[in-house]
């Protein structure tokens, strides 16, 4: 193995069933259902997936959903705004813990 992440592995995602078929089948059926048109459009779901892909920093998911959002007709500004949403939530999640820090500092300080 040359690297931990090999772009070619993305195409092998379906192979996870080789080691545990039942759960893989259930997962892929669920995955397909989640991304189908529903109360949210498939396009909206693709943008959410792109944002989450960045939040969880999964290079496979970023590859997959960059292509998928393009295919769904998303514009580049829409895609980048989705990434900013992920960044804002991640940044906010860090910063909101600042309140915890402040509480602790106040508790310990005169």
């Amino acid at each position, binding site marked *: 193995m040359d690297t931990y992440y090999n772009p070619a592995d993305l195409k092998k995602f379906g192979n996870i069933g080789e080691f545990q078929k039942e759960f893989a089948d259930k997962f892929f059926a669920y995955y397909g259902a989640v991304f189908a048109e529903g109360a949210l459009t498939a*396009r909206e779901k693709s943008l959410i997936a792109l944002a989450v892909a960045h939040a969880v920093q999964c290079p496979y998911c970023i590859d997959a959903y960059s292509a998928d959002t393009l295919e769904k007709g998303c514009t580049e500004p829409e895609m980048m705004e989705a990434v900013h949403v992920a960044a804002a939530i991640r940044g906010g999640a860090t910063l909101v813990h600042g309140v915890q820090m402040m509480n602790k500092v106040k508790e310990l300080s005169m």
Partner: protein
Amino acid sequence: MLKSLKATGNQLADPAFQLTVLRQDVAEAGHLPRFADKLAGAGLWPLRPLAPAVLQINVGKMCNQVCKHCHVDAGPDRKEIMTRETMQLCLNALAQTDIPTVDLTGGAPEMNPDFRWFVEQLSALGRQVLVRCNLTIIVANKKYHDLPEFFRRHGVEVVSSLPFYSADKTDRQRGDGVFADSIRALQMLNAVGYGQPGSGLVLNLVYNPAGAFMPGPQAALEQQFKRALSKDFGIAFNSLFAITNIPVSRFLDYLIESKNYAGYMEKLVTAFNPTAAAGVMCRNTLSVSWDGGLYDCDFNQMLELPVASPARHIRDFDAAALAQRAIVVNQHCYGCTAGAGSSCGGTTA
């Protein structure tokens, strides 16, 4: 403005070289199955034609645009155009058949000096005429400004490429300023009734991806286009056809230059859909080249793969013999059978 592959002496201007590239994957890598084998697996080999519904006539490679993805390698530097004599041969052939629709393509078909005469004759023959209009030709020169009115007079169905509803993506694929000119032309078509409810004048748009990816679901894209074009420019149209870019000519060159060729082909092969394969347009369409050659489709025409039938020229048109032929396929055909399928009329599955 870009130049055609032919004008720049690019090797890919040679159809034989394109076929070598397309076949290499099978020979060298061995991981891409032959399209014919894939068809056989779906019980569709040899691929047989159905009753012809469309005669698609390419009246020339001359065009006012040089689009990056053009499978015709069309442009202002291309001089191959159909003569009135060859048009007459097409009319003679059509008169022997009941093929209801004639689809005129190019290049920019309107640049052929006999274009209007041909439309009038086809119309007089009682055939539905469809013109693949690139839009910008309408505003390119004063002599073309009345095209919307000419189309209206002959009940011509207009099919026009607009890769996206914003300028950046459209201009990246079709050239600087193309989006703004296309919008002006669409507004001129709307003004004479095209795309307007109840007018009977059909204006369809063609979406094709501006890059090495597949088109998304056609219905969802149509909704997006309708919403955006109406809101931003007050433009109406009938339907959107989502078309997959076929790895031929300039799009093949783009794929190779951008190092997307292997990934794109693999994507097309993985997405092979037997239902789309059964519904491919070459089964009910016959294609005529600017010099009268007969082909199974416009892509085969550009790859110089003529029909597998004794009559290979429109002057020798023989409907009965053509009905017996096997359709000629090659690796580029994966473009029409991937996902929801692709044809000149959009998805097929």
